[in-house]
């Protein structure tokens, strides 16, 4: 099992939802509002006067064979318009209840 954290501009929320539903990923936790800055370019998303936009984030735990499929469509979504920005990070799950 792998944990995938997807962080993206909140304007992309419905499209990310669509990816998850199409891939039949049913379990996830959403952090509706998160602040942050990318390390490779991109605008800060701070919800301040200077940087008013904000990010949203999903953390989903999936089977190993789903990771590539998920990342593929995250990347595709990123290419639709790179100004929005979407990133996915994957790490291992060692134990689970």
């Amino acid at each position, binding site marked *: 099992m792998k944990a995938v954290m997807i962080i993206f501009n909140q304007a992309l929320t419905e*499209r990310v939802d669509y990816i998850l539903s199409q*891939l039949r990923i*049913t379990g996830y936790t959403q952090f509706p509002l998160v602040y942050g800055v990318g390390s490779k370019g991109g605008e800060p998303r701070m919800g301040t006067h200077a940087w008013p936009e904000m990010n949203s984030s999903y953390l989903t735990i999936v089977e190993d064979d*789903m990771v590539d*499929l998920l990342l593929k469509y995250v990347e595709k*979504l990123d290419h*639709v318009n790179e100004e929005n920005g979407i990133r996915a990070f994957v790490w291992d799950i060692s134990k689970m209840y």
Partner: protein
Amino acid sequence: MSIFSSAVEKPISTMMVFLAIVVIGVYSYITLPVDQYPKIDPPYITVMTTYPGANASDIEQNITKQLEDQLNSVDDLDEMTSTSSDNLSVITLKFEWGINLDNASNDVRDAVDKTMDALPDDVDRPTIMRMSTSMMPILVYAVTADESYTGLYKILDDKVVMSLNRVDGVASAYVAGMPERVVYIDLDPNKLDAYGLSIDRIGGTILAENRDVPGGNIKVGIEEYTLRVEGEFDDSEQIGDVVLAIGDGKTVKVSDIAQVRDTLRDISLEQLVERENGAILLVTKTSDANAVQVASDSKVVIEEAMKTLPSDIHFEMITDNSDFIIKAINNLTDTLFYALLSVVIVVFVFLGRWRSTFIIAMTIPISLVVAFIYLAVTDGSLNTISLMSLSIAIGMVVDDAIVVLENITKHVDRGSRPKEAAKYGTNEVWTSVIVTTLVTIAVFFPLTLLPGMMGIFFKPLGWIICISVTTSTVTAISLTPMLCSKILRLREKDQDKGKKYSFYNWSQRMLDSLDNFYERIVKWVLKNKTVTIVSMTLLFGASLLLAKLISTEFFPQNDQSTLTVYAKMQQGQRVEETKRISMQIDSVIRANVPELRILTTSYGSEESASFASMMSTTGSNIMNMRVRVVELKDRDRSVFEIGDDIRKMLKQFPEVIEYRVQFGQNGSTGNTVDLEIFGHDFDATANFALEAAAEMKKIPGAEDVIISRGDDKTELQLYLDREKLARHGLTTAGVGSMVRTSIYGYRNSKYKEEGEEYDIIVRLKEEFRHSISEVENFIITDGYGQKVRLKELGEIREGYSPPSITRKSKQRYIKVTVTPGEDATMGDIADAMKEYVSNVKLPQGITSLYVGGTYEDQQESFQGIILLFILAMLLVYIVMAAEFESFKMPFIIILAIPFAFTGVLLSLVLAQVTMSIVSALGCLMLVGIVTKNGIVLIDYTNLMRERGYRLYDAITMACRSRLRPVLMTSLTTMLGMLPMALSLGEGAETWRPMGISVIGGMIFSTIVTLIITPAVYAATDKSGSRDKKKSEQAQYRFMDEFDAERDLPEHKKNK
């Protein structure tokens, strides 16, 4: 912090806030006056003018017409009708409802002032009265006496009437037919002739002698005196001593040429109580006074007075309006209590737990008590309408609390602590609770906007329901969670399972099997959508045919245990003959009406136009009867059946030309249909009215057919020869006034005794004016001082004149009034009458025909209700469309409304109840309740759909889970109305139709909602959601190449 968390965190403060509301509410309840209906200020102003001695035509030409011309221009005038009869002109102005009557009275007064110059000189100043139905007597007593009968009137007047008139709110107290004291000076024309005196001169002398003149002050020494010339008579004997002339050293006194009689006015009205001589004491109240209060105050006064009266004088109550009101209100209060009880039982059956039931029940008194505060603040009263509204509200106010409690219980059952469960449970449902309340308000708020008379009745209803429902919502999200947090107990999951006889387990089992049964029905319906929808529509269509079987009525009449009988016999019949026939009628009624308690009869007429004569028509050929029957619970027949019986008896008397039987006090607002015949020519209209009346009598169920204008009566007409008049230096006016003083008399002077004033009437002795030849021999002094006999100036002919002339909007008209009998209604009669009007050929002289009367008001009111329906529907649509964010969903819900009417029609036919304003109002209420059920179903189905269930699954699940709430709200409303529908006591006629129509409508519409809503939802939704998927795909192009079958790993494919 939200309202419910504060409430849960601070239970004591919450409790105190509600306690305060209850305390204020209970205080308001105690101080609220009791009345039958909300306070009505009917927009009627009456202008009454007396011109003694004039006949109807004179009155019409000289007074009514003049006044009408001016009054016609008064602002906001709706309708003007007038009656000109002998001696009296009565103009009734009906204004628009809801205008300021003070301003209107002022305008009327101005108009009358402008007319004053145009009126004849000896006309009394017109009296302007605000006439209203509440001026009808609220208390009527029959007074009997043995030895004291001769002095009865005087005793009553001194000891009872005087003190009654001082009671706050009493408009007038009077003894019907009470003889007045007058001083007659009966002159002998031969002696007048011998002494060369005229009546005018004698009258003038008496007037001049009967004077006190203040002479100013004089100072004598250190004292100051006022000087007065004392001439007023202290004793009527003194009038005889007035010196009229001195001739040849001899004085001529009044007593020399006339007989002075200090006596009672010659009257011919006789009053019988239980066939014995008696008197009728009537007490009326001012329109804004409270009937119950005035009646109880008056009774105290009469009790007090009775102590000082001779012991043989007895009072027997004939009519006590307040008694009926109190009984009706008590009856309705009982109904309210039973409603509360049945609602609590329903809640208990469904929830199966005492604690929950208690929490729900708490919201009822709080919501109701706030309605009392509203009533107290707006100067309202506890009346039929306000209590009816509360009965309606009882079933509705528990709904919100139930929703909240259910959700909290769900959390508690999951093991949350009651306090947390209360907070989070309320948070989840509070918005939907508010939305359902908004729908109810959308239906009832338009009621508060109703104009006119309907508004007076139904504004309070609208407000009370809006206010109590709003309060119930506030209570549901504050008090209910607080009580839940304190009262609900955490249960171990399987606690009840072991108990075999637990009511909770039993009721839940029963309800579970009901759920399963309903689920099966829904599944069948979904499979056979078209069949269901088509058959339901056919059913609705078929039910519309039932409408033909229902008769309409304006406002249900109440059985007040009293009725009045009016019978008219041959015009010109002697009083003795009227008495003989009256006694026969009396005997027949006595023999055939075993329910009779007291019967009073009066016949004959009062001479002058008095206040009492406005209340009832009198005449020497007219009999008026008041009948009181025993209490409602002691008899099997309704007063209406008895009335019908009496009508049959009256038909047996060939002498009785016209008769009318009326019920209760509000005779003037009874249910009548009028045929109005307009036309100037008396003969033409009278003949046509007779013809029409004969036709009307043929209509089945038509009773009391009355022509408003009586038969012409004979009169003597004096035609003067103008040439002869001129030769004698006389004019018609001069001769006319001389004739008038001879017969009617010279009445300018008043005799005063003990603060009371009595007329002094100077006229010829009766024996010199009781035949045509006597009148012809009247001696007139001509312009040259010569004496001529009246017959030398002209001749007396016999003629006919109408006894009264009625006009509407300045046009003469005759009304043929028809009252529907026991087995007919106004609608039937009006239909028959309309058919007659459209078929009949109008003869020469008839300008137009018109069907009016109470029927007209009924039509207007029903139109108002239909408008209200449309308004309510629109508002409901708006609220629902906003809630569901859909144009389509509200339609699915509104679809169930027509079926409610099917239920109403069915129940009205089965229960043999008429369609009246009250049952129409019941229909209006159904709109609110029915939509509420629909909302519950649709809302949950939408929820299930959003959760991703397939259409049919979503519908089935939603229906199954919402069955209980729907049944519960419907049952609480139905059972809340049940006591109303079954009520039989005093006043029940008013609210039974409401109960019956709501229950019938509810049963039917609930069943239909449960069946047709899923079918229609399924039928309309299908195509919509497939399109939705396609359009969604189009938006997410970046995933076009994705194919679930190809790309997904095996373990995902089956999900």
